[in-house]
């Protein structure tokens, strides 16, 4: 049951990710990305990360991606044109990509030949209560700093994107 759950949503995630990269029109990529995020949320649930799953859907899929879509609509970005390729990128990119994937896969297999197995309910420490507790005790300082960071981001975004008042 868990395996099927995993496989289904893993495949959805991979297909959506491929779609993000392959589609020419940005809006299609954005929608596919939402799909990725959704399936990842399910996988988080499988791993016992209830809070994270909720946060993923609310913040990432709900806010960030909507922002993306707003901007795409605002800029009226069309489908990408086919012209102009960077030689360096193709020369380096493809082999390096393959190398990256290969290396990661290799290390993963080496490090976890057997390892732990995941089943739903195997980890119960990811509740909102547990996360909140850690957030306000051990990770209090990063929490406060990130709130400052968000404030700065807001200010930055407003300053950058506003029209000149004349």
């Amino acid at each position, binding site marked *: 049951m868990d395996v099927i759950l995993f496989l289904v949503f893993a495949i959805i995630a991979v297909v959506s990710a491929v779609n993000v990269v392959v589609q020419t029109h940005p809006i299609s990529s954005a929608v596919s990305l939402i799909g990725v995020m959704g399936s990842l949320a399910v996988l988080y649930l499988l791993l016992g990360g209830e809070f994270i799953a909720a946060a993923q859907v609310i913040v990432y899929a709900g806010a960030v991606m909507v922002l993306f879509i707003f901007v795409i609509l605002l800029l009226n970005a069309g489908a990408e044109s086919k012209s102009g390729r960077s030689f360096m*990128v193709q020369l*380096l990119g493809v082999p390096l990509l393959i190398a*990256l994937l290969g*290396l990661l896969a290799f290390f993963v297999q*080496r490090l976890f030949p057997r390892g732990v197995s995941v089943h739903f309910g195997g980890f119960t420490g990811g509740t909102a209560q547990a996360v909140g507790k850690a957030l306000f005790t051990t990770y209090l300082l990063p929490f406060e700093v990130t709130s400052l960071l968000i404030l700065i981001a807001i200010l930055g975004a407003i300053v950058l994107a506003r029209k000149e008042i004349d």
Partner: protein
Amino acid sequence: MQLWLIPLLPFAGFVINGLFGRRFSKGVVNLFAIGSVVLSFAWVLKTVLGLGDITSPHVEHYFTWIQSGNFTLNCDFAVDRLTEVMLLVVTGVGSLIHIYSIGYMAHEHGPNFGGYYRFFAYLNLFMFFMLVLVLGANFLVLFVGWEGVGLCSYLLIGFYFDKKFATDAGNKAFIVNRIGDFGFALAMFYIFKSFGSLDFGTVFQKAPGAPESALTLIGLLLLLGATGKSAQIPLYVWLPDAMAGPTPVSALIHAATMVTAGVYMTARSWPIYTHAPAAMETIAVIGIATAFFAATIGIAQNDIKKVFAYSTVSQLGYMFVGVGCGAFGAGIYHLVTHAFFKALLFLGSGSVIHALSGEQDLRNMGGLRKHTPWTFWVMMCAGVAIAGIPPFAGFFSKDAILLAAYHHAPWMYWLGTITAGITAFYVFRAMFLAFFGEYRGHEHHPHESPAVMLAPLVVLAALSLAGGYIFKVPQFLSTVFPPIEEGEDMTLVAISVAAGVLGIFLAWLMYVAQPRLADSLSIKGLYQLVYNKYFVDEIYDTTVVKPVVGGSRVLLWRVADVGIIDGLANGIASRARDIGVVLRSLQSGNIRSYAAWVLFGSVLLIVAMGMAAGGGIR
């Protein structure tokens, strides 16, 4: 004894005239220049009289110059009888020439009275270095003086620095001297290696015990230095060209003092030479060869100063014969008498040149004894002295040398006698061409020289006539040098005197009595050979100078300097720039290529981390 005053007085004159002379009037310049030299002469007299009959050197130590390991070199001055003789000649004749120069240089053209102050400044500097050379108590202090007089010679030969032939002559003198100096330097290295010291006392004490091969090598290297400074074969070529300088310079430096430094140095080193017979033989052979060779060139020259220049080379050869045959005292004797009559000959020719407003070619002179009687008579005194007519100065010294030569190797005596005849011939040829016959030149008023120029000439004439008789130099130096077998042979004396008289007679015959005889007797090819100084300069030019200059230009300049050194320096810069160009291409401004590079880096990092943790993964 305060020996340091002797060289330092002229040096003070040099400093004062050199720094401030351009603002002085001629009188003030004279005061410092001549005054310093005359005072130095006075101090020499006081020193000589104060030392009396010394038999061992009187040494004064001033300061330690070099202290390195177990090599110590002090700046010391030493005076023994040989030094006394040299000091008297240098300061005495030097003073006379300084006085003469007042008149000779009085009418120079150009700013600052034509460089009047500069002339006297250089002359004083020369006196300083020459006195250091003579007073030095070790080879290195002598070498300092040696090099210094070479420098002053260069400065004074090229005194008329706007004339290219003068500056060329100065260069030639300095560079040819340098070759000799190289030999001297090598000799000093070898002396240090053999004896551990450069001090005269130490070296000459240890010399008898050293291996003969070492002494021969040292002797030959010192001889190389001497041939450079004293203009012997093969390094004599600079002396005739040095006549480009003002005449007092020719008299002082290239007749009386600097060129005798080589003779002095070899005589001083007699303990080395007496134990290295091969080297001494070489000295004698070079000396007699040079004497004969230069005399033959002298008979065909037309420039009056060149005649006496070759005469100087020839007479220096005689001095070396004396030294080489073991008659060191005789060699120094001839040095002294030669200083008298040669300086007189040069100063006298200066007087003639001054009378004719710059004419130096004998073919444009003639009949001057009517116009310049004083000059004529003093020149005659010099002439009979150099021809070796008794009882004048040259006779005694030349005879002493020829006698010693006969006892050493008779062929040297015969060659020397022939040369004496040739000497008399060419000197009187010059005299007759200049003072007898009809005046062939263009000068309207040949006038006698002023008293300031004539007075030193008269003094020198007196010395040339009586000097040999008054100053018995070999006896005076008998405590310094090893004894030599005396053998007064009247026949030999008579033969050499006869040779001199014959030379004078032939000259009279060819240039006074029967002028056309000269032309009919000359063999065309032989005359050309001798007139062109056996083409020695040209030979040197093609065999030595041009290859060296060419090789230097091609190899050292183009290959080594431009190619390798500049190439290295510029090459490093170029490579740095090329690397920069390559690196610059990374800054393409293209974000995606940056990303690709980041990916590349991160892959490397993953590999590195994986390898670092490689053990754990197994």
